[in-house]
């Protein structure tokens, strides 16, 4: 079986897919990739379905050796990947020879990166998902983060790649940029009526800083205090992905992939699904400004994101000398392939 050997894992590298859906009613958290856009694009660029298990790293990419020829893609945080001492591109298909070593020279912006490998990581599914959920020690490799000398088994890689392999490149306009201050769109509620009116304004008009107490479960923020009308507690109910809880201390907590399924703190707002990808890329010290949007605006954003992801599957298999550009002519967008003529 094809495999990848981890030489150095980085501080937190785990196996993730789209998560363990359908078991929240039993108290089982979803887990899954934090930045689902980057994760799905990585898979598609590597020639996988968009839900194959891949590597998610935080802060520093892993150093790893490919024990077989492989087709990979690296997305997410703006990193500097190095393959056999040469810089490698982000957001495009990469062909890697057996024995090659991938390493990373730090992160320029963002926090989390994804390495998808053609064939996908082959880990036993736990409740229909390969996602690592660290708190219950399930999924991925023995339910834990990767360590050095781990051998990661892969599905069929380059041998199974159809035809003459050509790289896919995600058009530059579609590559997300990660900033030090992000505008994060939210839908107020489900319990915004339990907060003081002026505190809703405070929440929407202030900057909140991501604290060091932030992880895959949730991001604790620091900023102007948000006050409740009466009690900060409710009868425990379900916590939606991106739900923003405010306990008695008045500082918001954004509930993310590894969140517990139920909780008893009031939720002032919920981050819209497309903007969760931005949050996943915010390191401690970075800032958030919340903006209230309507359900329609959120769903429009989701449809646009989905059309970008879908466009990848339709990209032509171009020789490496080809460039794919996105052009706008009289307001209409076109994907154009440019190649030198012999």
């Amino acid at each position, binding site marked *: 079986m094809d495999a990848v050997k981890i030489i150095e894992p980085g501080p937190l590298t785990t196996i993730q897919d789209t998560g363990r*859906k*359908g*078991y*929240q*009613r*039993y*108290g*089982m*958290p979803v887990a899954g990739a934090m930045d689902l856009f980057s994760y799905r694009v990585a898979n598609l660029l590597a020639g996988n379905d968009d839900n194959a298990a891949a590597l998610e790293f935080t802060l520093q990419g892993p150093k790893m050796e490919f024990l077989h020829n492989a087709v990979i893609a690296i997305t997410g945080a703006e990193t500097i990947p190095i393959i056999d001492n040469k810089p490698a591109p982000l957001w495009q298909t990469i062909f890697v020879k057996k024995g090659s070593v991938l390493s990373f020279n730090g992160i320029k912006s963002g926090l989390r990166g994804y390495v998808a490998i053609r064939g996908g990581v082959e880990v036993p599914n*736990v*409740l229909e998902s390969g996602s690592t959920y660290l*708190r*219950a020690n*399930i999924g991925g490799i023995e339910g834990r983060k990767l360590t050095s000398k781990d051998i990661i088994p892969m599905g069929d890689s380059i041998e199974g790649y159809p035809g003459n392999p050509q790289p896919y490149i995600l058009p530059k306009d579609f590559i997300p940029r990660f900033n030090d201050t992000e505008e994060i769109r*939210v*839908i107020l*509620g*489900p319990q915004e009526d339990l907060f003081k009116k002026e505190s809703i304004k405070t929440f929407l008009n202030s900057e909140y800083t991501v604290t060091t107490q932030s992880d895959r479960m949730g991001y604790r923020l620091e900023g102007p205090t948000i006050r409740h009308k009466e009690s900060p507690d409710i*009868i*425990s*109910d*379900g*916590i*939606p*992905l*991106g*739900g923003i809880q405010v306990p008695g201390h008045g500082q918001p907590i954004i509930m993310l992939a590894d969140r*517990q*399924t*139920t*909780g008893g703190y009031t*939720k002032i707002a*919920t*981050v*819209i*699904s497309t903007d969760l990808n931005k949050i996943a890329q915010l390191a401690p010290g970075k800032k958030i400004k919340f903006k209230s949007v309507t*359900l329609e605006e*959120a*769903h429009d954003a*989701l*449809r646009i994101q*989905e059309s970008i992801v879908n466009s990848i599957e339709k990209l032509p298999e171009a020789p490496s000398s080809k460039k794919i550009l996105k052009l706008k002519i009289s307001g209409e967008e076109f994907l154009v392939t440019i190649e030198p003529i012999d």
Partner: protein
Amino acid sequence: MAVKYKAAGDISLLIEFENEISEKVNAKVRNLYLAIEKNCLVGVEEVIPTYRSLLINYNPLEVKGTTLIEKLKDIESRLEEMDIPKQKVVEIPTLYGGEFGPDLQFVADYNKMSAENVIKIHSQGKYLIYMLGFTPGFPYLGGMSERIATPRLNNPRIRITAGSVGIAGTQTGIYPIESPGGWRLIGRTPIKLFNPDRHPYFLLQSGDYLQFTAINETEYNLINEQVDKNQFQVNTTLL
């Protein structure tokens, strides 16, 4: 009181009943949950029933939020006509006291009764499983007798063995997986509430009832062996 439908972001919807913890309100949650499951609505990915509400996760690329709300309201208005299955009582064999329940004597002393009486009162009750949450398979149980209510530990334990049965105030519960916790431990069950190697993965369903039955150490070991071989069947009866 009118049922409330609220957006919880762009991929979740919250349906709220009366703002109280009661068997009556929880029964409405259970009935609506079962009816939604039965109707297999397009775009609905997950339904999470809790004390007094349901969180519906949906895919807005498959169904419009407003359309989904209309369909849910329709189901809710026809609940009376629907055939809802009866609730089950699931028996949880429990070895009380000793190293398996190190706080049993404290609970007895605190409530000025014998350890035997604590066991008797604890295993007499039928506890409604209001919801599951907190950790995989953890049941929020209602209906424990005030007579054995005991405050939590001042210093929570760092590691509690899976299967431990505890008391916290007027609540009782079972730790499904090893975790930290501050409940007073009075016993342990060999039954696994969560087991990824078994179908179903989770033993309990919200809306059903749970009853503890006292067992001795020989029985505990016997059941434990059967559980390890995935051969043990819990006793269930209809309410």
